[in-house]
């Protein structure tokens, strides 16, 4: 029964990893940008949520109404001012710029919030749970995270396949030059993609802040989990990213079942296994 429980908890944990990964997958798909600062943006969003909760006294979930648009706006400005000028030249410059951004964010947060680890309290939902059967109890918070992750991925899929914004994303991803001839300003399209990514980052940041302690140095680990979920799932496939998150989550909880020290290691090992056997991921869609 312990193993069934571990798998169930792992699936739910995968939802959080999928939230970490969805924004990463989205911007890589649209503009081939690998955002090294993605994890730090998640942590920055967590601090932003913390600050807003402290100032307004809102429930963390209600604070999302403020944090999500603020992060999206920040994402758009970041893309237009800092990242667009680095795109299209070579592969290295955007990588270096986002790496620099990562360092700046970590140190900026350190200066502003100290190195003390912080946490957001969401109240009763943190301890609420559902007994599915004897020996298997699912927490309300992990369940909510998983449901939100599925909703976010489904929402992104609808945006990509049904809306004119999604058409613009796909067209720009296919051929940015010709997309410009369709009266699409690719700088604006990239800005919107980053805004969407940062909006998802905001959701991920709030859940991160409620689920665990975080400090200014927490970002890189989140980036790694996000990357692993994207790669395991296969580039360019959003549902694959969710599957990748679940595979990673289950690997970690099963590893922890063997020995607590094995939790992270098991996740990384499964990642390497997938990379070795199927370098393009489990469900690749992009060439």
């Amino acid at each position, binding site marked *: 029964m312990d193993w069934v429980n571990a798998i169930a908890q792992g699936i739910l944990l995968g939802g959080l990893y999928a939230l970490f990964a969805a924004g990463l997958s989205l911007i890589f798909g649209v503009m081939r940008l690998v955002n090294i600062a993605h994890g730090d943006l998640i942590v920055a969003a967590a601090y932003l949520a913390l600050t807003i909760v402290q100032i307004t006294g809102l429930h963390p979930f209600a604070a999302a109404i403020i944090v999500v648009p603020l992060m999206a706006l920040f994402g758009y400005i970041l893309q237009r001012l800092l990242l667009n000028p680095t795109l299209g030249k070579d592969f290295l410059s955007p990588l270096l710029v986002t790496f620099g951004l990562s360092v700046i964010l970590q140190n900026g947060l350190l200066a502003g919030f100290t190195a003390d680890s912080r946490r957001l309290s969401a109240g009763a939902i943190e301890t609420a749970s559902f007994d599915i059967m004897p020996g298997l109890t699912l927490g309300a918070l992990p369940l909510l995270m998983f449901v939100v992750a599925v909703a976010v991925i489904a929402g992104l899929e609808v945006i990509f396949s049904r809306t004119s914004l999604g*058409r613009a994303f796909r067209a720009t991803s296919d051929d940015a030059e010709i997309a410009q*001839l369709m009266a699409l300003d690719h700088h604006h399209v990239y800005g919107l993609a980053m805004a969407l990514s940062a909006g998802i980052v905001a959701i991920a940041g709030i859940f991160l802040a409620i689920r665990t302690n975080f400090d200014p140095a927490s970002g890189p680990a989140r980036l790694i989990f996000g990357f692993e979920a994207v790669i395991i799932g296969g580039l360019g496939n959003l549902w694959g990213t969710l599957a990748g998150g679940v595979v990673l989550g289950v690997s970690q909880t099963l590893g922890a079942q063997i020995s607590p020290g094995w939790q992270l290691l098991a996740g990384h090992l499964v990642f390497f296994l997938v990379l070795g056997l199927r370098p393009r991921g489990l469900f690749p869609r992009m060439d």
Partner: protein
Amino acid sequence: MTEPLLSLRQLDAGYGDFQALFNVSFDIATGSVTALIGANGAGKSTLLRAIVGLVRAKPQMVRYCGEPIGGLSPDRIARRGVALVPEGRRLFRSLSVEENLVIGGECGRPGPWSLKAVYSLFPVLRERRRNPGTALSGGQQQMVAIGRALMSNPELILFDEISLGLAPVVIKDIYAALPAIIATGVSAVIVEQDVTRALGIAHRFVCLQEGKVSLQGDPAAVGRHDITAAYFGM
């Protein structure tokens, strides 16, 4: 005399250190068809790319409806009513045929062209509208590329290598559609390997040689011998 739709004045353009066009000047009158001819590497594609903004030019070098548009971004030039059917079609591969057409109309310019109008011009596209654009034959892809350009209701449409790589029977179909397109009042520039075919449909021709205009005029008034000489630089 009325203002030409597009006028190029001493246009120099190129890629980085490589200059492909030198001092190119000519006008395109509203409602006219211009054949742009010249050997490989003469600068025909670069010229079209400079008009749509994909290659940088100085403002006064490209004037459209009397206004300088050289150096504007391609999306702004597209909004003003200039459309390109690019060499090699370059359809969006993750978009269906219909989505490729719809995205062409994204700029929202009013005019005669709509999905319905494009489907009645190229009925085969209606049957294949759910297919990915790149799953079609070369000729059908060219129809999608033309339809995509028409969807923006352009005033000026540029066809780059309109028949390159297509079967002769398909080329006939494409050319059969051109009169219906031109009849709507749109001006056209056609880049074509088959000089005879291009001159047959055009009101004017411009011949490029090594990035310079070597000859221009009325195809009916200029002898074939002179055109051949301008083409090959003999």
